[in-house]
């Protein structure tokens, strides 16, 4: 597979200049996820304020795709209410599992649309989803339901 679309400028930018990186207190829920195939890891913390996700903080070791994805997650979700966030989460998962057939909606996904190309690389889809899965767990632990866990296959 050629790299067209995988390493979009937006992704490289988020990787080199991550938004909101670092673990912050206080938080309502935390989750640590590992991709057993490649060893990538991420810890995500979620702080909740009423129905809003007031902060997402994270720390992790991983490739440009998983790191940029965490940065985009932070940017997209911080400050939004649970229902909106569930919609974003669902749209992102659908995009990633669409094998390149899903047309992303920039109004919902913002910089996340840059990940459209990743969906064509089955081995990298897990990388992109890693922070989102951890976020979902952390949110659940903070008492916020942002939708069902997508099935992610090796």
């Amino acid at each position, binding site marked *: 597979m050629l790299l067209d679309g995988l390493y979009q400028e937006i992704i490289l930018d988020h990787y080199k200049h991550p938004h909101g990186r670092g673990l912050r207190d206080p938080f309502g829920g935390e989750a640590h996820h*590992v991709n*057993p*195939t490649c060893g990538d890891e991420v810890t995500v913390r979620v702080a909740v304020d009423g129905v809003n996700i007031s902060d997402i903080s994270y720390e992790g070791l991983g490739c440009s795709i998983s790191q940029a994805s965490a940065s985009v997650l932070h940017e997209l979700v911080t400050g939004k209410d649970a229902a909106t966030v569930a919609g974003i989460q669902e749209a992102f998962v659908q995009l990633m599992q669409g094998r390149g057939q899903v047309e992303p909606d920039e109004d919902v996904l913002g910089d996340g649309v840059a990940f459209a190309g990743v969906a064509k690389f*089955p*081995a990298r889809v897990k990388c992109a989803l890693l922070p989102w899965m951890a976020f979902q767990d952390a949110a659940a632990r903070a008492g916020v339901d942002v939708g069902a866990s997508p099935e992610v296959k*090796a």
Partner: protein
Amino acid sequence: MTFDVARIRADFPILDREINGHPLVYLDSANTSQKPRQVLEIMRQHNERHNGNVSRSVHTLGTEATSAYEGARAKIASFVNAATPDEIVFTKNSTEAINLVAYAGGQHLNLKPGDEIVVSEMEHHSNIVPWQLLCERTGATLRWFGVTDDGRLDESNLDDLVNERTKLVSIVHMSNVLGTINDVSRIVARARQVGALVMLDCSQSVPHLPVDVRALGVDFIAFTGHKMLGPTGIGVLWGKYELLAAMPPFLAGGSMIETVTMQGTTYAPPPARFEAGTPPIAEAIGLGAAVDYLTAIGMENVHQHEQDITAYALKALGDMPGVRIFGPSTPDGRGGTLSFAVDGVHPHDVGQILDAQGVEVRVGHHCAKPTCARFGVPATTRASFYLYTTQDEVDALVQGLDQVRKVFG
């Protein structure tokens, strides 16, 4: 599609062969089947164009190999109507699949003295010895269903055999000696009553009949690639996902882990948990192609063809003086595997004289000594059929047996 044996035979290169100056008459498919061009071709293509290790690489070859391997898993899952491909664990053969359940399932069941495992007297050694060893390890007791004179499972003492102490019942779906196809519905119902798990050894049924794991209502089945047009070196354990997920690992090593430190290890979910090390990749892909081939023909059609051949063979052999058939004497509830004795001639000699005429049958105990013992013989001669078997081949067998009686007359 009508069932066209001639067209099917054209797909099997080996069927052109001569043996001892005679056209090959291959009547040993219950032992191992022949493989169609389509299966060999897919494996060749994989090895020549797409070979890479699975689940470990981001590179193109690795990604291609992984998607072919996982694609095969999905095909096999739908072939037996599994709920998800994650219920399909690749092993090297049926025997490993049964041992996997005996080790990991046995550990999960936490067996103790007083607990019971139930098998039958018509099992292949691969569905006896793993349970004997499990009983030795745990102190549990092995019990078994008997076999009736006409080669059926004797269920007369079902309620006694399968009781509150029973933790697992493992029964052959189709006997590799008698050809009997066991309707296990009563046994499954009774096992459910007492809370026992049920495993079916489908080594002889999945290749020859439509098998639907959900309709059977069992917990595990085992089958093996080389008996169903696939390559050697690949077998399958199907298990209910919740059960697999509750079981500890068996073989340990690469690819079955979540994380490893020198101090301790956590394990991946099924099926990866049970596939330690580099799996038989090309072989799984070959088995996927075999399943495609069988699906295209239709398992109902395969079964019907074998029923026809079996009816023909039962009559032809039944008419021969001095030939005694073991197992059901009509095609009802039996498959195309016929064991018999020829009066006064040892199976080895029968097999040898048939081979001289190009007719390949198996002789011996067929890895089922207790079944042979049940019928008072140390060995039998066995002819077994498949989708490529013709009536002419049954005729060749009959002529061959005439020759046997001439030599030993």
